[in-house]
């Protein structure tokens, strides 16, 4: 079943997919001595990992709670 936290990885995914359409990213000029597109892309690639880690944590917490509820109910 789809939960709100399943959409957490959509944040970095959208930031990556939309980068050529963001006027402050797709422009000349540099950030930290590197092209803005490159910095933006690299930063959001890095953010994919914590987004997935957080999602996994919330998924395992919920499955743990479900197992606990099932055990209590069984203890019928």
């Amino acid at each position: 079943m789809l939960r709100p936290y399943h959409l957490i990885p959509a944040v970095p995914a959208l930031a990556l997919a939309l980068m050529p359409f963001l006027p402050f990213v797709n422009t000349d000029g540099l950030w930290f001595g590197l092209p803005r597109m490159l910095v933006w892309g690299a930063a959001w690639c890095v953010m994919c990992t914590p987004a997935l880690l957080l999602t996994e944590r919330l998924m395992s917490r919920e499955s743990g709670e479900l197992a606990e509820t099932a055990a209590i109910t069984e203890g019928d």
Partner: protein
Amino acid sequence: MTTILIMTFTGIVLIGVLGFAGRRKPAADLSEWAVGGRNFGAVSMWFLQAGEVFTTFTFLGMAGLAFSGGVAALYALPYIPIGYMVLFFLAKRLWALGKERGYLTQGDYLEDRYDSKLLGTVAAVLGVVFVLPYLQLQITGLGLIVQLVTGNSASGTLSMIIGSALVVAFVLWAGLHGVAMTSYFKDVIMLVVLAVLLVAVPAHFAGGVSAMFHRIDRLHPEMLTIHAGPTDQVWFTTSMLVSAIGVGLMCLPHAWPAVMSARDPKVLRRNYTWMPLYELCILMPVIVGFAAVLVVKPGTAANGILLTLSKQVLPSWATGLVVVAAIATAMVPAAGILIGISSLVARNIARVRAERTQFWINHGTVVAACGLSLLLAIFRPDLLANLLLLTYSGTVQLAPAIGLGFLARRPVGKVPVLAGLFVGELVVIWLTFWEKGLAGNVNVGLVGLGANLVVLALAATAERFVARNASPESESDEPVAVTA
């Protein structure tokens, strides 16, 4: 030059030897050979999955793309993390289905989920036709690398022959275990070489990475933006989207053995979580390619840019290491592609019942596919070039079938899926070869996918309508709940 040649052929032989060393015991059957008995741990899985990403295209093509198109090359940066985020959610179910139902290939999955041998065979044929040019690309790339650094076409041809023979030999001998063993070597040497080039090339030509980009910003600011032209925002986004769908829904058949070989689904999920960080390595050849904007004449053949710069900056022994790394990015993915192609033929096209016969058909296909690719790479390198355009846009037409197959109760039958697939492929082929300008800068794979989905939806609606009006005894291909 002699130093580079010696290192080149030593590197090719070393990769072959490592491939042979991958075998622990003789493979008893196709499952042991193609998916390593489904017993691969986190480290092997990591390098196998990374091995699919870092090919000659990444190593040489990305630098060339940065030289010719500037930041447009960055379309390759987002699609893999986005695809892996999709797989993060799907891999557990896919692995469980594969283990329970004995899938080795993409064709096995489609055949089982839609209860249709025809769909399994069609998917396998499409997979072989669209991925064979990708195999030839790796072999051609190998020859091109050696030819570029030696300036001698004969040594390029010889390297293709020796490289292909060794790949076939270690793939037959060790199967996926051999690919895993060579993947370790490939990634380590590739990362070391790219790190050296990342420091040495910009420092040599511009005084450092930051200084290099400041000069590009001053002299060629258009290289730092996605702007109107053949690689505009529409091209960037649609190319990225098609590639992301291809990765996320496992549309390329050679991606399947690696996923099916995992010991458990936690390994897959952990890798998909951390792999986006590893993908940042793609930026290294891009940055090196930007240096060429300042020092190489516009219009120079883009694919050789990285090696051209290496020769100008590094001593010959170090250039030899660059060549070995580049060769590894050709030979190792070629081995993985061979396993993907041969298992498709043995399982979903030849359709023999006896396991032993299936195993020999598989091995015969390895020799035939690599032999054909080698012959074409030497004598007709342009023959499959057009088909290469279809590798991603053609295989991505399988996305609806694969995606809907994940559902426990699949909403459509095999007929709508086949109809959508047929129309999608027709649209892609038509737009690629006959009406080239019609789609503008939109990736033709996405246009085909749109037509594919429309036809699938219409056929599914018609199917339900027919099923509702049919008499109870009549058989129809109505949607059903499938196992698991």
